């Protein structure tokens, strides 16, 4: 299990959070309970299983929604 912090472009609508959260939770290998998207700091935090899903795939799922990923950090 690794944990990722993803800095997104500035989020402006609270419903953006729900969308991103939904997209992240739909990925196999992402721990659902740890997914947290914060509105004001425009960050997504989650734990994931690196054998099932890569950070690139996670980033892609966000980009596909039309949100830019500024940088992400995996620990």
């Amino acid at each position, binding site marked *: 299990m690794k944990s990722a912090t993803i800095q997104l472009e*500035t989020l*402006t*609508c*609270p*419903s953006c959070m*729900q*969308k991103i*959260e*939904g*997209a992240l939770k*739909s990925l196999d290998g992402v721990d659902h309970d740890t997914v947290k998207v*914060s*509105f*004001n*700091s425009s*960050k997504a935090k989650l734990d994931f299983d690196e054998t099932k899903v890569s950070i690139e795939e996670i980033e892609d799922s966000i*980009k*596909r*929604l*039309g949100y830019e990923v500024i940088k992400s*950090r995996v620990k």
Partner: protein
Amino acid sequence: MKKVFVNVMLGGGDMQRYILKNKNSIALLSGVLIAVGFLSKWTMDSMLIFTWSLIIASILGVAPIAIQAYQALRVKVVSIDVLVTVAVAGAFLIRNYEESAIVTFLFLFGAYLEQRTLNKTRSAIKELTEMAPESALKQMEDGEFVEVDVEDVDVGDILLVKTGAKVPVDGTVVSGEGSVNEASITGESIPVAKEKGSKVFAGTILDNGTIQIVAERVGEDTTFGRIIELVEEAQDSKSEAERFIDRFSKYYTPAVLILSIVVWLFSRDVELAITILVLGCPGALVIGVPVSHVAGIGNGARNGVLLKGSEVISDFSKLDTIVFDRTGTLTVGNPSVAEKEYYGDNIDEALVYLASIEHESDHPLAKAVLEEIGETAFLPVENTEVIKGEGIVASVDGHRVAVGNVALMERENVELKDKAKADIDLFEERGNSLVLTAVDGELKILMGVRDQIRPRVKEDLLKLKKLGVKNLIMLSGDNQGTVDAVSRELSLTEAHGNMLPQDKSAYIKRLIEEEGQIVAFVGDGVNDSPSLALANIGIAMGGGTDVAIETSDVVLMNSDFSRLSHALGLTKATARNMKQNIFIAVGVVLVLLASLLFSEWMNMSIGMLVHEGSILAVILNGMRLLRYKLR
């Protein structure tokens, strides 16, 4: 055009992304098209150009909204985008291109303005995170220093910090010296001198000099990293009210959708149904509270007040009682001679004897006495005898000199005259510790040593009272005399001395449970964590220590007392601001609904205009908090 749109809806991923990225240009373009349409209608009377430019503007404008709606529906969320898309489609269906174009334009333009203004409300916190160091000069195996990303610094690395650079991590100076501006950690902008062995903190700036440090805590573990994390978590923490609004809006938007369908089914009036969709958009209500919240927390962060979340803001703003955990919070914490009396002749010699004896002592009062006497030559001190709990007897320059308290004077058979006795009583009553000096059995000097009240504390306490704090209570481990002296000088409501940590927490528990007060506890966070946790609001003062940051609800970044009144004033202003925003949001919805029911002029475009206007109103109102200053 329609084909592209369908293509987009069916998931041309790159196309979707391209459209969303250029949302702002699309808004501009559709605005221009609308203007062209109306101009040609008024000047050339050309209905053809009018209609077609509005049709194109509608299709262009609805594309990004529809994409967002589609994405929301895919993750089972009925978002505002869904409402607007359906409304625009409805308007299209009844061939009201004028409304479909204007509504999409207003929605996109509003979103653009929202983003701009929201960035402003978040700017204070952004400033803070941007102070985080990004690179470091790290010593490699060959001894050279190479610039690396701060994330590549590990504990134990040796780093070089040059003049003007940020200290990249928390660590200890191993060589060199310089002065560091620690404003980012303590809020204090006076540079602090650092030399070998001094601790330095990430995010502080080396004003002059060059130092080498060994990294001890890196990244998010540094004090600065924790502060940033704390503030970021705080701004996104949700209060009970916000969670309610979230739950509410989750069901609210689908309910609006259903309502408009029901209205359409019964009235067969598409115009009315789609107007309901637009009026029902919950924008200002959803965004109003978080905006006040983030601006308030941002103002605090900028002024050295860390507020941990919105629950804290709401409790803090209703404060009844502040409890101070020790005299040191209100006093300088550095005892000094407050009063003195001389008796008889040869005082100058007596002062030299006193200084000579105190010079060799490490008693806390000795320092205060020496500071009072100032520069002087010291004489040799012989036959020193320390009497525990009483003082010192020694011979200086052939005289027998006794320095200590009243008990020592009695042991030495020093006669205390009426004047001296009266002085002693008076000094004690004022909370002084006494230092008496007798030369050859005769009392020469009486000094009263006590802790001084910090400058401006009195005015700050008055401000707190003005802000509605009813009780100011001191619970201290010091003796009752000292506590009473401080209490009297500052006119505290109550002051209790000789309190152990468990006594303090019991006292706070009683205030909260039996008297139903909302209590803040101001402490240093180390030995008083039970009280900090127990109080409604735990305030750690002169923060920066880990325990203080963990256990408290509010961290005051330095020990400047005025931060406390700023914090209280700020939370009150923030709580007020949130209420205003809720009022604006709910009020606007009510007015819109009423005018829909009882007036003729309401339509979709006006509805959207008012809706976007109310969102901007709550954001602008929230922004006022960034400039809040306690007067």
